[in-house]
């Protein structure tokens, strides 16, 4: 079963931000190591690292006209911060991997979405 794991940053410090710099070097190292460990978990296919939501552009089409706005579709804090794909036996296995993603303990959250399967 394939799950798409969406990482929401929430209030978790963004890499390169002041909040992130305020963390001790040890904590920062731990966070990188934990992300690395998640990426190397069997069944995980890492997504491309996503840039900051403040650099996002949102596009709508209304009456044939393309409308472009600055920023993410939802608010900055609600924006998706990253994603990966997980092949796992069941939801419990996916929950265990989600709980190891650092954002989940730093003020963000992981949303587990089953990929649609047509069988």
């Amino acid at each position: 079963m394939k799950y798409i794991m969406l990482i929401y940053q929430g209030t978790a410090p963004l890499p390169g931000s002041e909040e992130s710099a305020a963390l001790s070097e040890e904590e920062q190292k731990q966070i990188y190591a934990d992300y690395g460990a998640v990426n190397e978990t069997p069944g995980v296919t890492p997504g491309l690292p996503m840039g900051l939501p403040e650099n996002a552009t949102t596009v709508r089409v209304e009456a044939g006209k393309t409308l472009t706005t600055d920023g993410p579709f939802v608010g900055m804090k609600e924006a998706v911060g990253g994603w990966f794909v997980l092949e796992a036996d069941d939801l419990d296995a996916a929950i265990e991997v989600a709980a190891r993603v650092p954002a989940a303990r730093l003020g963000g959250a992981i949303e587990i979405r089953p990929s649609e399967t047509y069988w």
Partner: protein
Amino acid sequence: MTLDQVFREEWGRVLATLIGLLRDIDLAEDATQEAFAIAADRWPRDGTPRNPRAWLMTTARNRATDRIRRDRALAAKSGLLAAGSRTEGSMNTTTFPDERLELIFTCCHPALAIEAQVALTLRTLGGLTTDEIARAFLVPERTMAQRLVRAKRKIKEARIPFRVPPVHLLRERLDAVLAVVYLIFNEGYGGRDELAAEAIWLARALAEMLPDDPEVHGLLAMMLLHDSRREARFQGSELVLLSDQDRSRWNTEEIADGRSELDRALTLGGRGPYVLQAAIASLHAEMPCDWAQIAALYGELGRLSGSPVVELNRAIAIAETEGPEAGLRIVDHLGLDDFRYLHSTRAEVLRRLGRTDEARDAYRRARELTDDGAERRFIERRLTELAGAKSSS
């Protein structure tokens, strides 16, 4: 055993085994329903089979197999035919794996909304119909039907496992199951007896399947002890406080039953929240009431839960042992301004202290927060009594 009793006892077991076999709740439910319908038709005419459970399981499985044979495409997807032929032999014997535990852990999985957990548990384990559940929770049948459909779809689509959780998850998941059972009981406590009976029935099944877990016995004990006072809690439609209850209307059998479950929990070394609450309920059933012991148990429960509501209950016990002043001191430090029982407790303590004006204000505040009929009328009665009294402070 009457047909109804057999159905009551067997529904959850047959359904759980079928789900274990088919890995498809809808298909299992349809097949189980068909088997029960056939039984209702045939058994009164031909007699009840020697092993009703085996008969129901075999019939339900055959119904499912038939259904799948009619739709080969579906068969290819679910893999039932392979499973069916693999288990053909064993399904005809008299022993079936009891998979109700797997089922209840699936129904009470934290990835489902709590209302869905409750509804699914009542539907699958309890065998209540969608209409019965809807009526018990005062929602339209269509709403309840949708809730069940959505929950079953999520179990399938998100692949919520059908299994007893591994050891490192067991405590947390079992607590979630117990919370659902207790919620069902509480829904029934306000007078909807069938839900309280259902919760006790579910807890008994759990205690049978998990005989070594003290909290399971603790929950069962607590519910039995509370339920034993059901008849005495109301005089007509009026609420009667514990101290004013007619003890001859307590159900002594349930009290004895509850106490033996509590003993079992204590023997197993239980000291968790349900065991403590059961111990408190057991002390409440004694005459005279050991309020000092009750206060100590509430203290222990409060340290476990950190809940101000528990502290409020401790204040009531302290008011009994150390006097209303001491109780009031605790109540006044609790916050909980939107909690009606804070104000009714405060009012009661103030009334006993003869501080009538303050008592009246507190009852009025409690009344503002209470829409429930019997409890509201109780407050009204107290206010009427106080109207004649003069404040001594």
